[in-house]
């Protein structure tokens, strides 16, 4: 099945292919599905996309996505305001939130440093984190950047930046995934898990 690349349908397929995880075949299937879908239902998707792009802003305090000045977590008085967990992207924040295991506040960097791409500190929301520490009341900062070269660079940079403010700075543990046999772990993962060990 192939669609000519001029028409309206082809244009929709081209847009769908740009989404992460969508290949040409899936995009065609989705496009034909939308074509058969009732007008109102299909347009609800278009409307939801428009609403997200026009209605969402970043939380003034933590740079998470928000619908007002502060996000749902920063607004919540029941959260522990002395702890800040730092993530690269909002999607990581929601992954951690789903576990229910963290009750503090967040800080979203909206990016990460990359020596390979020349992405420096002025491209991430690091200064905003410093401002929050200056305001006082924060006792612990937990860095939850990815275990990639970008996440590593970001964690090293942030540690140096925020240490002077006296809050405890920690980094989430990296190592053997739950359910995996230790003998199958690669060398770097194994060393990281030994470095990240804890007292019992």
């Amino acid at each position, binding site marked *: 099945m192939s669609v000519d690349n001029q028409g309206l349908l082809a244009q929709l397929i081209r847009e769908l292919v740009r989404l992460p995880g969508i290949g040409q075949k899936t995009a065609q299937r989705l496009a034909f599905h939308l074509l058969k879908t009732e007008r109102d239902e299909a347009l609800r998707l278009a409307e939801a996309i428009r609403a997200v792009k026009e209605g969402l802003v970043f939380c003034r305090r933590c740079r998470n996505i928000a619908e007002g*000045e502060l996000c749902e977590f920063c607004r919540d008085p029941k959260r522990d305001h002395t702890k800040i967990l730092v993530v690269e992207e909002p999607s990581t924040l929601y992954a951690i939130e789903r576990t229910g295991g963290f009750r503090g506040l967040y800080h979203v960097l909206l990016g990460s440093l990359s020596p390979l791409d020349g*992405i420096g500190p*002025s491209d991430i929301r690091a200064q905003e984190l410093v401002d929050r520490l200056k305001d006082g009341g924060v006792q612990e900062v937990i860095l939850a950047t990815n275990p990639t070269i970008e996440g590593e660079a970001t964690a090293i*940079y942030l540690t140096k930046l925020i240490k002077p403010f006296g809050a405890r700075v920690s980094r989430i543990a990296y190592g053997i995934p739950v359910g*995996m046999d230790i003998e199958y772990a690669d060398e770097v993962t194994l060393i990281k898990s030994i470095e990240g060990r804890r007292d019992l």
Partner: protein
Amino acid sequence: MSLLKTPAITLRSRRWGEADRIVTFYTLRFGKLRGVARGARRLKSRFGSALEPFVHCDLNLFEKANDHLHRVTQADIQESFAGLREDLERMASAARLANLVNAITAEGDQSSRKFETLLAGLRALQAGHDPGLTALLFQVKLLELSGYQPRTDHCVTCGGELHKTGEAKGFRFSPMAGGLVCDSCAWRRPDGGLVLSPGSVAFLQKAGQLTPEALTRLTVAGPMRRELDTTIEAYVTVVAGKRLPPVDFLAAEPREPAYEAKRWP
């Protein structure tokens, strides 16, 4: 389809699709090539950290007909170079070497000397040699191995004798021409203004001659180091056809924001 096996160094690795990575390698046997590692970002990926930038691994890939994107089937770490991902300066210098090789090498362009030189550069950084100086030295060497050795014996444009210029007591280097230029040629070139002292010229010649392993014995500091850094940076930009991400990436210029949304003032 055929199976390729080769030692390889990861130059860069980017997210692809839902859980995959596209990795650019410089390999000993086949030069630069790109491969897709299916499921590399999944929790129980068999690749683990073997495809992180700068890792030296033994690589197995499938070559597919009519596709220059190979499929990575296995990667076993030889040298993890973990130290290069734990310090910002070393990381930045290693990134520059990887970016340079990536920028000046065509896919499939094989050179075991270039592979050994890149490896020696990463080893020197891992061993704790001055990151900035190591980046400078190995860039000069990598340029030479790629056929871009800056010409320093005669004027690169007319082949004439070189003279030290006036008060500057140095030679003029033209990044566009790829070497030193005589006074009358420099006068006609818009970019002929970089001045290299005789000591810096000797340094460039020496760096071109030494083996990669002996390269770290060479050292340079102060004003000479600064003029060499400036000159090589300008020359690399010409050879690569674009400005590479700066070695001092902490001072990098801000880019377009990745998220387009309203911001609070």
